[in-house]
């Protein structure tokens, strides 16, 4: 029944989505704790938004209920900050013994009232993390695709898909 994933996930993953929202609203949804709890995995984040600042990703309530999740599940360091356009950070998943990866968020203006969010995740040397973010691990969620699809729905309709 279970399909084993013999396929490797790409080392460079690019996710792009057009959202009917201002760049500021998207920036806020990515970097603020309150917003991060409202879409995707509903896992709170904490950013110290300056170069060298700390990034912390916490387990969601649902993950905590499963019992085996520690409080902090992802750690990173902010490398570049240019609100509301560009954020570069490292991103290390603590449950895999793999090196830190690099995550870049870019927010551009598209047509009127629409912004373009492009997320580039450089997962070189971190194949397990890559499978996770690509949503290729059974039972571990849809990865970034699911997160950003849900973010779009939340910002455009004020409702999350998985509420």
């Amino acid at each position, binding site marked *: 029944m279970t399909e084993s994933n013999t396929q490797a996930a*790409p080392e460079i993953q690019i*996710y*792009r989505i057009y959202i009917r929202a201002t760049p500021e609203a998207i920036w806020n949804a990515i970097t603020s704790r309150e917003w991060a709890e409202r879409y995707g995995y509903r896992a709170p984040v904490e950013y110290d938004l300056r170069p060298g600042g700390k990034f912390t990703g916490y387990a969601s309530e649902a993950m905590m209920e499963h019992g085996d999740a520690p409080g902090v599940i992802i750690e990173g360091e902010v490398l570049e900050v240019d609100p509301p356009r560009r954020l570069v950070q490292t991103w290390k998943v603590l449950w895999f013994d793999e090196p830190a990866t690099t995550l870049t968020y870019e927010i551009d203006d598209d047509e009127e009232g629409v912004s373009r969010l492009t997320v580039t995740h450089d997962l070189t040397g971190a194949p397990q993390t890559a499978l996770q973010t690509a949503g290729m691990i059974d039972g571990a969620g849809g990865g970034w695709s699911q997160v950003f699809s849900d973010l779009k729905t939340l910002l455009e309709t004020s409702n999350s898909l998985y509420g």
Partner: protein
Amino acid sequence: MFAYLLTCDHLVTYYRRMADDDRVFNALADPTRRFLLDLLYQRDGRTQSELEQEVEMTRFGVAKHLRILEEAGLIVIRKSGRNNLHFLNPVPIRSIYDRWMHKYTEQRAATLLALKHELESRGDTPE
């Protein structure tokens, strides 16, 4: 109807999403384009010439298909030195799934899949 379109933000958003979905469905409604996406799924970040080698089609034909995929947001093209690398962007497909599959099918599909599994595990159908 038009008055609604002009005044009601929800409807504007709804119709815009429909247009986005149309482009994705249209892009997926062609075997060559689905094949190109599968190629990128197998190995992401390929140049156009690498993709051309895999398809029995003129350069021009492949370029046209890639443009339709790009307009639908299904691929993202990134410059790397002298090359344009093509990356699969899975988010629009996920959005279609969330919008059109997940919502309608979860309950009934789960029941049907359980039935299929039950019938097939009786042994008269090959695995």
